[in-house]
């Protein structure tokens, strides 16, 4: 038994050594292909519709995690309040589709478009205040402000009366679908969330590889130097913030329309810090890492909470500590280390 395990360790160790000799970009491509094949083949190998639907939810979380990774992993701007946009997506669509008024209620997709527009405007104003003010915010100051925004929105959601539904939030029955297809549950929702994830991932990957993405990575490394190469850093940061807010808002739309209920915790600090764990676990600044982190942690949570009724949080906490100690850069962050070529 000892000999067998010893041999296994040697084989894994040799495979790992060979893997890290492969150039980073190739390793990343292989990781993405393997991950894509694994995730998108699930409906063909799983028969449990509930589980397929659950993976659709994980995909939505993954979109949320990608948006945080762009901001934190690539832009170097830690945000403690990103659920403000995720939850706002749910609240705004719920309000636009259920409340009465001059142009309300709206059908689902116009409501989604309007919700994302409102999120874009709100995030633009917030980022303008944060990055273009007399004393532009950086580092911890920025993180604290994002936390404050999430806290304020949560308080407003609780105290918002008929508009936000107060403590109970808003129950709404709008079905996800397009072109006559029902995409609200099971394989339909899985397909909608999966395609959305794929689109967001590709857009994020193209952005990271673009001129703007290189400038963003430069800001993470040394903001002052970027400015002294002639770039208008506040403008770059505002643009990035609006993009990630819209991604998070779209993820929130899918998630809460699918659930049919949105409540004050949706925009609060708990959801905001949860997503940071996914990104840290998967590997910030990798894009694929946060996808893995979101899916693995949420699946573990869903599975363990049903079996280890009293201790599942403890188990997940210990697992997180172990993973962070063994892979300080996150799982895929560790895999992606090595030669750049």
């Amino acid at each position, binding site marked *: 038994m000892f000999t067998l395990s010893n041999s296994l360790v040697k084989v894994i160790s040799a495979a790992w050594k060979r893997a890290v000799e492969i150039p980073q970009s190739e390793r990343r491509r292989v990781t993405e292909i393997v991950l894509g094949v694994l995730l998108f083949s699930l409906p063909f190998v799983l028969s449990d519709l509930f589980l397929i639907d659950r993976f659709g939810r994980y995909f939505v979380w993954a979109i949320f995690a990608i948006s945080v990774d762009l901001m934190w992993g690539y832009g170097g701007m830690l945000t403690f309040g990103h659920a403000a946009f995720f939850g706002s997506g749910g609240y705004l669509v719920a309000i636009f589709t259920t409340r009465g008024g001059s142009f309300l209620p709206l059908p689902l997709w116009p409501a989604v478009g309007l919700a994302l527009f409102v999120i874009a405007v709100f995030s633009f104003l917030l980022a303008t205040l944060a990055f273009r003010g007399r004393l532009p915010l950086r580092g911890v100051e920025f993180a604290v402000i994002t936390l404050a925004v999430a806290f304020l929105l949560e308080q407003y959601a609780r105290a918002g009366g008929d508009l936000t539904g107060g403590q109970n939030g808003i129950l709404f029955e709008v079905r996800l679908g397009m072109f006559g297809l029902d995409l609200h549950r099971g394989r339909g929702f899985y397909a909608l969330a999966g395609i959305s994830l794929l689109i967001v991932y590709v857009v994020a990957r193209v952005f990271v590889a673009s*001129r703007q993405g*290189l*400038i963003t*990575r*430069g800001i*993470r*490394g*040394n903001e*002052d*130097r*970027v*400015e*002294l*190469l*002639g*770039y*208008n*850093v506040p403008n770059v940061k505002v643009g990035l913030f609006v993009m990630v807010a819209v991604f998070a808002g779209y993820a929130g739309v899918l998630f809460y329309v699918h659930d049919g209920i949105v409540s004050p915790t949706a925009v609060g600090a708990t959801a905001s810090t949860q997503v940071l764990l996914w990104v840290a676990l998967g590997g910030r600044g990798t894009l694929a890492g946060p996808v893995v982190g979101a899916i693995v942690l949420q699946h573990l949570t869903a599975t363990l909470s049903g079996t280890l009724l009293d201790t599942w949080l403890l188990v997940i906490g210990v697992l997180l500590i172990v993973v962070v100690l063994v892979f300080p850069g996150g799982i895929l962050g560790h895999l992606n280390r090595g*030669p*750049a*070529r």
Partner: protein
Amino acid sequence: MTTLLEVRSVRKSFGGFAAVDDVSFELRSGEITGLVGSNGAGKTTLLNVLYGKTFADSGSIIMNGTDVTKIPAFERVRLGLGMVFQITSVFHELSVTENLQLGALRKGREVRPSSDTDIDAILALIGLQSRRFDIASTLSHGEQQWLEIGMVLLAKPQILLLDEPTSGMTRAEAAKTADLCRSLLSNGTVAAIVVVEHNIDFIRRVSERVLVMHRGGIIASGSIDEVQKDQLVRDSFLGRMQ
């Protein structure tokens, strides 16, 4: 020689302390100006005011006829100013080529976007061709300093500001940096250079003109030999001047 930069009666205070006090000088094309002085003389504050990290309380800074006294740093860069720090500020997680691409990518006002050929030329100039794919954090201090100079040069500045470029360098690296400065000027890559430096041998090798700062003001200017004979300068360096 045309005047590229005019500094007129610039003053910068922190609380009641005047770190830069009524400083005036002109920077002409084709010259390397050395800025020397003891610690606390105001050299770094003056550089900060020149590149726009902080704004002058009074006085004015004119670049090529444009008043830049109150415009932000990135706008000054677009008007032709380049700044290289004493503590290198390259992007440690990016490769050498990616660092240079960041210098070459800018497409703002006064656009002269650089090409791959420009990057190859700069790599040759700073002697890092063989390390183009290496991550910047793996370079030595001297190589990082040259990489930073390369990044700044790709933004095609007219005026280059260097803050203690030889700090932490070996003698050989400092000599190579001196050669680099002279060649930048002789081959027209930049039109003028301002060097803040404690290394007087380096200043002697590169600068035609030296400005000596003491307690926020300029107390002497001229060639290195001229200012070294100046009694005020000798007293200020030896600590006898009150």
